């Protein structure tokens, strides 16, 4: 065992692979952070769709959620990898493909979190808002969503941990994230044990720290 390989390639592994700064369009965080933000925006649409009074919209949103939750993420990534050049006749770089796949896939899971958050707001709040004469849209925007968002913060942090770990799958289509960076270094140095152990530790530190944070948030919110 020789951990010198980690020291020698630290810049490529961590700065390029994990953070995403460097000569390649890569990076675990550079994929995970936009994916959670955009996925959340789409997730609000899906979550509201699941609660819509219109039966057709509710049906569409349910199909969306059930479909993406029944298919492996690897499959979804391959779909976008092939479908975008084939059908749209444009070629996206790996970053665009991976980001699209993650946003659309995560929106199904985030939509369920958002739906649960909205349903956690007591019915009395809705009735009180209606009694003061707020329209349905305004009730949603000013009364329900602010409270719902607060309730769903711990679940969102947890989902971000899941997403952070899932971004390692983007390496399958050649996106240079932390996992791919380790593979690249390993092809040259043949030090699989040290390299894969190192990236396991990096992933571990970030997701463990965030899971502690989620637990603390939850405790604080449950007291309030």
């Amino acid at each position, binding site marked *: 065992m020789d951990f010198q390989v980690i020291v020698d390639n630290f810049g490529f592994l961590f700065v390029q692979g994990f953070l995403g700064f460097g000569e390649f369009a890569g990076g675990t965080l550079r994929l995970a952070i936009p994916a959670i933000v955009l996925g959340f925006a789409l997730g609000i649409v899906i979550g509201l769709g699941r609660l819509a009074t219109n039966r057709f919209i509710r049906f569409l949103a349910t199909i969306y959620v059930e479909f993406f939750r*029944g298919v492996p993420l690897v*499959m979804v990534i391959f779909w976008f990898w*092939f479908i975008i050049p084939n*059908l749209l006749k444009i070629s996206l770089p790996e970053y665009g493909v991976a980001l699209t796949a993650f946003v659309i896939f995560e929106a199904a899971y985030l939509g369920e979190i958002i739906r649960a958050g909205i349903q956690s707001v007591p019915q009395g709040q809705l009735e009180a808002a209606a009694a003061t004469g707020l329209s349905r849209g305004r009730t949603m925007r000013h009364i329900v969503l602010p409270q719902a968002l607060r309730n769903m913060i711990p*679940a969102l942090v947890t989902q971000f*941990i899941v997403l952070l770990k899932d971004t390692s799958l983007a390496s399958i289509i050649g996106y240079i994230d932390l*996992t791919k960076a380790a593979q690249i270094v390993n092809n040259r140095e043949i030090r*699989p044990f040290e390299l*894969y152990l190192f990236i396991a530790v990096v*992933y571990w530190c970030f997701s463990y720290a965030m899971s502690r944070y989620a637990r603390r948030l939850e405790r604080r919110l449950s007291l309030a």
Partner: protein
Amino acid sequence: MNYQFNWGILWTGQSGAWLLQGVITTLQLTLLAWCLAVILGIVAGAFRTLPFAPLRWLSSSYVEFFRNVPLLVWMFFWYFGVPPLLPQAVQDWLFDHGAEFWAGMFALGVYHGARFSEVIRAGIQSIPRNQYESAVSTGLTIPQTYRLIIVPIALRLIIPPATNESLNLLKNSSVALTIGVAELTFQTRQIETYTAKALEALTAGTVIYLILCLGLAVLASRLERRFAIPGMIVQVKAD
């Protein structure tokens, strides 16, 4: 859009046999890993609720260590990282006997064991405390209490979240294609490589996954109707 669909590629040539082989490998991988995960999950989940700190500490470090690292990294670690450290004879034997399948199975089982243990822990903690107390006061030892009272009740309570976890395991078995296990996603890619018909191949793979997931969910809801204890439901957070 002027893509020429040709669904015939799915049943001409070797495609059909490949898909079937892929489904069989996926099911074998899932089933073996599921057994490993359930055993590890029950042991680690029960340990976490024991009134004995070293065992609690041991199982919580297992859980926190394995579930906070991506499954893909574990696959690479078990398949590429660990074998070079083993004696040459063991390495040769492993690579003659489908090392990628066993590494994939092990990675899946150990990773999902950590996640199952959280489900089982939640199940055990949702059992009213007096069950434990009355079992101990009738003279059962703690291992007997767990074996005869606590774990059997917990297993009946956790069917819905455990179903969810089992479906995750089935879907995650697709990650094993990265280390060369010829499961369903791998075969789908192979058909695409041979026929250059990506959409048909991916559609076939996707539909098969949906059918497998749906089938398992139906099976699990039957089990639930048969074994659930009315009025007791366990909520487990997804993470």
